[in-house]
């Protein structure tokens, strides 16, 4: 079943084009990584999917129009916009009470169970928690909701490595069950590469790459080319070439594995390397920089 279906999604802010005819289809049970440079339209696309912003074009999320049916859609969709949106005055117990009071698919016992594994106290206010604990609290609330679609927009921004790792581990182990769909946008591409089933690159408001991870691994290969094979390798038209410790690393699109194996050690490239290769210099910025 199709979870998200977007056709020709457009959105402009004044003269700035945020979405320039974006097409995207996400099937049920997938984990999609939405990756793009700052200002590429990631957040706008996610906001449109969540019914937070108006758009032109066709968009159906779980069969609903998100803009006109946000409140009904949210019974089946969860999202974490980023770690800093839980109100600072809110007590942990109040957060549980409120979500339990308004959400028909919230399982309070489950949320309490997740919280029991953390050091978060019921009487604490959000402002008293560390950033990592706020993310844990938000995740505990979200994971206790029996939703069909979970949207994460930079969910681990500003968290340290341990919290980031724990965040994705519990997401995979305690939440994902193959019938739910997860869409993640983040700058920390390396950390989510292994959990994704699909990847989409977005640039200037359009999807420039949309494939499953199996296709990605079959199509893109990286070769550590020995100096004697440099010319032969270049003849196969790598989409990117860089130097590391004196060795040439070339990234190939759609070249057969056997051909490349003759040139040197072949491996699956990281999404980050492909991202840099495809987006060019404009995408080169510190990983994890604020969106």
């Amino acid at each position, binding site marked *: 079943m199709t979870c998200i279906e977007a056709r020709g999604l457009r959105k402009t802010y004044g003269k700035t084009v945020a979405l320039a005819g974006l097409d995207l289809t996400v099937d049920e049970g997938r984990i999609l990584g939405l990756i793009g440079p700052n200002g590429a339209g990631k957040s706008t696309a996610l906001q449109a999917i969540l019914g937070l912003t108006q758009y032109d074009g066709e968009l159906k999320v779980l069969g609903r129009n998100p803009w006109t049916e946000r409140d009904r859609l949210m019974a089946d969709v969860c999202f974490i916009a980023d770690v800093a949106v839980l109100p*600072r005055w809110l007590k942990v117990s109040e957060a549980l009470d409120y979500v339990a009071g308004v959400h028909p698919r919230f399982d309070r*016992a489950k949320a309490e169970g997740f919280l029991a594994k953390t050091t978060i106290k019921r009487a604490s206010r959000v402002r008293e928690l560390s950033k990592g604990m706020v993310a844990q609290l938000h995740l505990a609330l979200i994971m206790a909701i029996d939703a069909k679609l979970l949207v994460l927009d930079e969910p681990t921004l500003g968290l340290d490595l341990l919290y980031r790792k724990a965040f994705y581990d519990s997401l995979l182990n305690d939440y994902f069950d193959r019938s739910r769909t997860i869409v993640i946008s983040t700058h920390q591409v390396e950390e989510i590469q292994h959990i994704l089933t699909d990847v989409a690159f977005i640039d200037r408001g359009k999807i420039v790459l949309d494939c499953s991870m199996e296709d990605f691994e079959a199509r893109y290969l990286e070769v550590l080319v020995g100096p004697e094979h440099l010319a032969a390798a270049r003849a196969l038209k790598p989409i990117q070439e860089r130097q590391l410790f004196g060795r040439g690393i070339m990234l190939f699109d759609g070249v057969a594995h056997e051909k490349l194996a003759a040139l040197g050690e072949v491996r699956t490239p990281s999404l980050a390397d492909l991202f840099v290769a495809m987006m060019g210099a404009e995408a080169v910025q510190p990983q994890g920089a604020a969106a």
Partner: protein
Amino acid sequence: MSPASDATSDPLAPDAAPPAALAKTRPFYWSVRRELWENRSVYLAPLTVAGLGLLGFLFSLHGLPHAVRAAKVAAAASAALPADAALAKVAARAAGSLAIPYDFVTGVIFLAALAVAIFYSLAALHGERRDRSILFWKSLPVSDLTTVLSKVAVPLVVQPLVVFVVVIPVHLVMLAMGTAVLSLNGLDPSVLWTHAHLLKIWLTLPYGLVVLSLWYAPICGWLMLVSAWAKRTPILWGLGAPLGLCLFEYLAFRTQYLWQLLLYRLRGGFAEAFTVGGEGRVPINGPEQIDLTRFLSLPGLWAGLVFFVACIAACVWLRRRREPI
């Protein structure tokens, strides 16, 4: 019990059974409670002022026996000379002075609630955008209409209820303290019960609170609209825009219609509700002088309510579109 393991026990059959917590949800009720968690001043401010009022009353109690004796002497003198109008006036004033602390406490509790309501309305739809928590609230299945209605219910319904619920026990405590002081001084405390006209205040208070809520609803609606619309300093827009328009009207046309309209809205609530004939001159002297029919047939009331509904509709429209700032 391990809820976490329950979650993963059967990952391939997620639709088998809905979670047990599928109780009936009550978004409006919980949204109002949420507002009170965030804005505890809604009840803390009136309670604090009530506490201060009680403290002040406690310190003033040493003068009570004297006031009661004076009232008795004046009443006796007036009874002996019923034809003397001046004496009757003195007697009435002496008796009335016994009621002043009760009126005063009611007034300051009301003013505290009013101040909180004004600041609450100005922040209601602004604060959630400023701290980005709107993204969390919007991630839950609560419509913008429910949210806006729950926010507008706080100053117009909850706040008056708080005033009522705080005022009556405060009056009772004051009455008890007064009674105790008079008894200790060998005076008959019943004079207090008859002259403090508490029953009158208690009957007039709910009327006043409802009527003032209706009368001031358009102001509340305007402040909420500004809080939904303004990017920063809603207080400046909320107060500045109407005054600026008045100034513009005066400079451009040398007329003051808008200014008169504003003054009528600000002062009219009390004048229409609490003075005889709504003329703003003679205050009503008890529930028997309340003329609800006249109040409810005021065009100003209904025009204000239409404006209020328009503001609230605009708030809902804006909340759907406004993004964090």
